[in-house]
């Protein structure tokens, strides 16, 4: 550790202590647990600053916040999963004894297949056994057994995704693209004369509605042409591909702008926390 690093560390510790004490004094008027609240607000503020310190360069304070986040978030999701899924939903269905042990209402049930009556007790032991098999991955010799529960998850998810995405990302998208190019109610096409006599740039007018339909249809078609790499992009195909990349560029620009504004609103949120909740400079 260099001398500069030690001095910086000492300054950080002193600032932390000063901030904690000052905040505790301020909060003691309004809160019974002022010291603890002041500590938590100071920790949040210093962690925020530690992350922002990465803008200068990678440093120990950033690494500290990063590693703390990994540990805390892993434990958070483990506790949530344990209490909500295992204790909340699984154990009350496995047996009455376990439900009583964990002070949960027993949830008896099952399904009669006609030739076989399956109770929850039998049905919910299967994923428990499969879950335990998954832990066999830790064993050098029995690791191959963990493939069975993995196979169930992979197979079920693959089958589910096959139908789900075929429907939502393909059939629904294609059918939504086939919009009426000559307008629909209340903008039904009534001839070129009627079109020009009622021409307006208003958002609710026929021209804007027709333009939207044409842009969507041509945009999707040309966008797909651009992504089709089995044929050389020359001639008419190449021109369609060119239009496709124009539409894609507009999308990338719009998405970029949207993302920038989203991130800036988060930045404003963090700065508000620092200047309002921590330093109390703005109200």
């Amino acid at each position, binding site marked *: 550790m260099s001398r500069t690093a030690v001095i910086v560390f000492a300054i950080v510790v002193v600032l932390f202590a000063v901030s904690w004490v000052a905040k505790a004094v301020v909060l003691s008027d309004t809160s019974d647990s002022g010291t603890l609240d002041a500590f938590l607000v100071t920790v949040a503020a210093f962690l925020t600053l530690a992350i922002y310190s990465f803008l200068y360069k990678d440093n120990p304070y950033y690494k500290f916040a990063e590693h703390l986040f990994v540990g805390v978030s892993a434990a*958070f999701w483990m506790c949530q*999963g344990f*209490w909500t899924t295992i204790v909340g939903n699984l154990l009350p269905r496995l047996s009455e004894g376990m439900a009583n042990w964990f002070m949960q209402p027993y949830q008896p049930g099952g399904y009669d297949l006609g030739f076989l009556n399956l109770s929850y007790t039998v049905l919910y032991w299967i994923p428990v056994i499969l879950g335990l098999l998954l832990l066999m991955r830790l064993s050098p010799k029995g690791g191959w057994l963990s493939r069975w529960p993995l196979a169930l998850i992979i197979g079920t998810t*693959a089958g*589910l995704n096959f139908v789900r995405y075929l429907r939502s990302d393909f059939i629904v998208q294609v059918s939504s693209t086939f919009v009426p190019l000559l307008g629909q109610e209340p903008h039904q096409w009534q001839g070129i004369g009627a079109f020009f006599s009622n021409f307006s740039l208003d*958002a609710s007018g026929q021209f804007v509605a027709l333009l*939207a339909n044409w842009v969507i249809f041509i945009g999707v078609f040309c966008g797909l042409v651009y992504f089709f790499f089995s044929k050389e992009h020359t001639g008419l195909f190449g021109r369609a591909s060119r239009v496709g990349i124009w539409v894609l560029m507009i999308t990338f620009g719009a998405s970029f702008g949207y993302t920038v504004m989203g991130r800036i609103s988060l930045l404003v949120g963090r700065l508000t926390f620092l200047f309002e909740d921590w330093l109390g400079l703005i109200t």
Partner: protein
Amino acid sequence: MKRQFPLFLVFIFGLFMVFQYFVPHETSEWVYEFLLDWILVIGIFALALGIWSLYKVSVDKIKTRKANWGYSYVTLFGLFVMILFGFTSQNGDSWGWYFIFVATVMLTIGMVIQAMVSSGQKGLSLILAGVFLVASVLIGMFDNAWSFHFYTAEGLQNSMFRAFFDHILIPILSTMFSLLAFFIASAAYRAFRARNLLASLLLLAALIVMLRFNPYLSPIFGDYMAKTSNWLMNVPNMAAQRAIVIGIGLGIVATALKVILGIERGYMGKG
């Protein structure tokens, strides 16, 4: 058995999930619901595997003194302290000796890890671990201000569990995302140069959308900026997004088919 049976399972469950969609029978829907429940339960065991993996990687890093090994202690501290909060809660208004208890438990774990990773001074670490363990057990037995909750989800209501979520997880997460604003601004400076038609389209679309969401500049342009931005998002943006989504959808369907038919076997690993 080692490779063929998992392939068979993938094929059967994959095929079932495809066909159940077209079978509106009560039994089919019932099996579908159960399979989804099973996946959730198995997923929790996978989470436990992940936690173990995180612990092992961190301890190994300390043991082998890899680069930045010291920060692994921070990860382990965050992990264990949050687990402790998840299983304990306050009984009244006072915390009593709770924080000293948390400190002694953390020191016990730290000393045990120290004994595991260090080649010398194992005995001293274990003695210290024993001392801290006795201290934590005594506090746990005689302090009534808080209690363990192994049977009910009181731990999730523990104000320290919520406080760590609100004052550690959320600030770090939102600051990490807001950090991207600076990098995006830097990237924009380089990318947003109207050198040709394509770059100009990108620049124009981004400017219109950004101006629309700017609370200070948007009113200058009146209603037009909002209308143009909305049209841009709802029409050309949607058209290209749809082309991308169709491509992604076809990719997912093809991959799912490869998995079900056993052509894609990467998930099985080696051996």
